[in-house]
């Protein structure tokens, strides 16, 4: 029998080579010869990429193409003579933007947390910063600049509305958001008969605004539709179940491009010829339904991962079935699949640029058509597309960042 020390051994510090900077380097980069080689090779590749990348960005690239593209990048052909003849329609999307800033401010006032505040000021700040672009006043008038600057006071105004008026409840701010979305659509579309709101056909809508409108509509609607489909697919009623499965499998099984084509060629056949046609609306519906089908499967995955004891415990307490679903199953299921849901949102946002195939000029298509119609910039296509990539990345990373914060807030992975 081995003898044991009479008292338990003292706690000791770890060996020096395992702590501090040296320890970190040793543990993570140079732990054995293979990792050392890997570190050196990838380090060399990184340095080369940075060297050529930065050199291209700062010395070789000619970014004037972005400046030349200007407002078209944001709004496409919206504010052209063809779209809005005889008047200047620039103020309508601007007003919509100010409403968005106000909404962000209200969200901050409601939530009161740092992330909401940062986002609100970021949106308003970037918008306001555009007011100082070094264009001459003929290209970008004072009125445009003033409207852009108005985004800044809109944030504290929204904050105050949420804090000091009866508007400051979650439901009401959500309703305000929905109202602002429809108000934006109405402003952009215009109203026949009102002189200063001359209708602008959706074929002239374009640029980043088009991507954002499609994405916001799609994201807000695809979650509730997806949840309904997921619940329907798990329903005990065979008819509901079959319908949901059919819907999901059809929309998930057909490429989005094919669906978009069908929405423009087949769907109009089903309606009378003289009915007003709105390609934007149809594209929005298709993107939303396509995304909902994927969303439904994400949510269903979350529901299936739940321990059956959760629903049993709720039912045993006397909660009726729908309350069990709404209060116990769904909150947990959605929380568990936040990464998949946000992945779907990001995918949806990127997919909005596919509307170019049905002739709508989203931000990517605007860039492409600009290069094609201005051959002097043909050599600068690279700069343009790098810039476009960056714009998409900023938005998708923003979503990713916010979802990370939401997960942190909900304690995902901890409880």
């Amino acid at each position, binding site marked *: 029998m081995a003898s044991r020390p009479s008292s338990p051994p003292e706690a000791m510090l770890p060996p020096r080579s395992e702590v501090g900077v040296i320890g970190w380097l040793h543990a993570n980069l140079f732990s054995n010869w293979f990792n050392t080689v890997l570190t050196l090779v990838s380090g060399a590749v990184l340095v080369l990429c940075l060297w050529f990348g930065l050199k291209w960005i700062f010395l070789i690239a000619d970014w004037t193409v972005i400046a030349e593209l200007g407002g078209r990048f944001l709004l496409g052909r919206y504010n052209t003579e063809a779209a809005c003849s005889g008047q200047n329609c620039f103020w309508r999307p601007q007003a919509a933007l100010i409403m968005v800033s106000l909404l962000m401010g209200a969200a901050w006032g409601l939530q009161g947390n740092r992330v909401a505040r940062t986002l609100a000021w970021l949106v308003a700040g970037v918008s306001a910063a555009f007011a100082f672009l070094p264009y001459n006043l003929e290209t970008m008038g004072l009125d445009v600049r003033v409207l852009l600057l108005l985004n800044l006071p809109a944030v504290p105004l929204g904050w105050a509305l949420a804090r000091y008026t009866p508007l400051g409840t979650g439901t009401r701010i959500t309703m305000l958001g929905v109202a602002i979305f429809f108000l934006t659509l109405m402003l952009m579309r215009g109203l026949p008969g009102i002189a200063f709101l001359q209708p602008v056909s959706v074929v002239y809508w374009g640029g980043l605004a088009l991507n954002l409108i499609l994405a916001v509509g799609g994201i807000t609607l695809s979650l509730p539709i997806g949840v309904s489909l997921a619940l329907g697919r798990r329903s005990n009623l065979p008819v509901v179940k079959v319908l949901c499965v059919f819907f999901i499998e059809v929309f998930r099984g057909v490429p989005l491009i094919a669906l978009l084509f069908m929405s423009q060629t087949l769907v109009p056949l089903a309606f009378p010829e003289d009915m007003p046609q709105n390609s934007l609306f149809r594209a929005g519906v298709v993107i939303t339904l396509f995304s909902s089908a994927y969303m439904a499967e994400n949510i269903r995955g979350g529901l299936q991962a739940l321990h059956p004891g959760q629903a049993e415990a709720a039912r045993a307490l006397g*909660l009726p079935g729908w309350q069990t679903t709404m209060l116990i199953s769904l909150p947990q299921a959605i929380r568990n699949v936040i990464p998949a849901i946000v992945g779907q949102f990001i995918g949806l946002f990127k997919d909005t640029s596919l509307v170019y195939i049905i002739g709508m000029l989203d931000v990517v298509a605007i860039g492409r058509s600009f290069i094609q119609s201005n051959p002097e910039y043909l050599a600068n296509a690279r700069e343009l597309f790098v810039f476009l990539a960056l714009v998409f990345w900023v938005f998708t990373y923003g979503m990713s960042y916010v979802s990370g914060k939401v997960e942190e807030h909900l304690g995902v992975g901890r409880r």
Partner: protein
Amino acid sequence: MEIEERNIQQETEDIIICRDVHKWYGNFHALKGVSTTVKSGEVVVILGPSGSGKSTLIRTINRLEQHQRGEIIVDGIELSGDVRNIDAIRREVGMVFQSFNLFPHLSVMQNITLAPTKVRHWSKAQAEEVAMELLTRVGIPEQAAKFPAELSGGQQQRVAIARALAMQPKIMLFDEPTSALDPEMIKEVLDVMRELASSGMTMLTVTHETGFAREVADRVIMMDEGNIVEEAPPGEFFTNPKNERAQLFLSQIL
């Protein structure tokens, strides 16, 4: 006098009646005609080897499992396909599970107040007051704001008991409440159950804790292969079991 008489009558009333209850899982015959009654205020412990149908039996009483033949009458209401009957019975029957089944996305307080506010429509203040009383009763009032994952197993099970009691049930079902616990935590849960039994609650408990059965139970039911094989007061059951299966079972666990 009248009131007292009525009380006595209620106490001796059969609050759970099972008559010839059958239950199949597919082709597997899990309950083979179980008949028994439980009086109001009685503490019944169900023993038996695993797979004998103990859990299935108590889960049919609040219809987490559906029986296919026979009848079950709980608090005067017969369990049938009628959803309103089922919800009415579930309001009066609390249940505690082996794996606690606390709602991880809700705090301890929210876990307890959820059903009273949503089902009984109490005000939030009233529900929270009752919840604090119950948490004090199970000995963990200081944990109200925490989330289930921050508690030990024994504490979680005590919260689960408080959650069930918050609905002010007439009957409590315990489905192996201590089987998922470390030995040192079993005692704290059994203490709460002991206190509950002495307060006059009608209790149906599936457990392997023979000590608890001996000490607290008014009656022990021994099940085997989907049937009740012996039903007796604990003193009699543990010292002088009549049934062969019960004798074998006791010789194995004691």
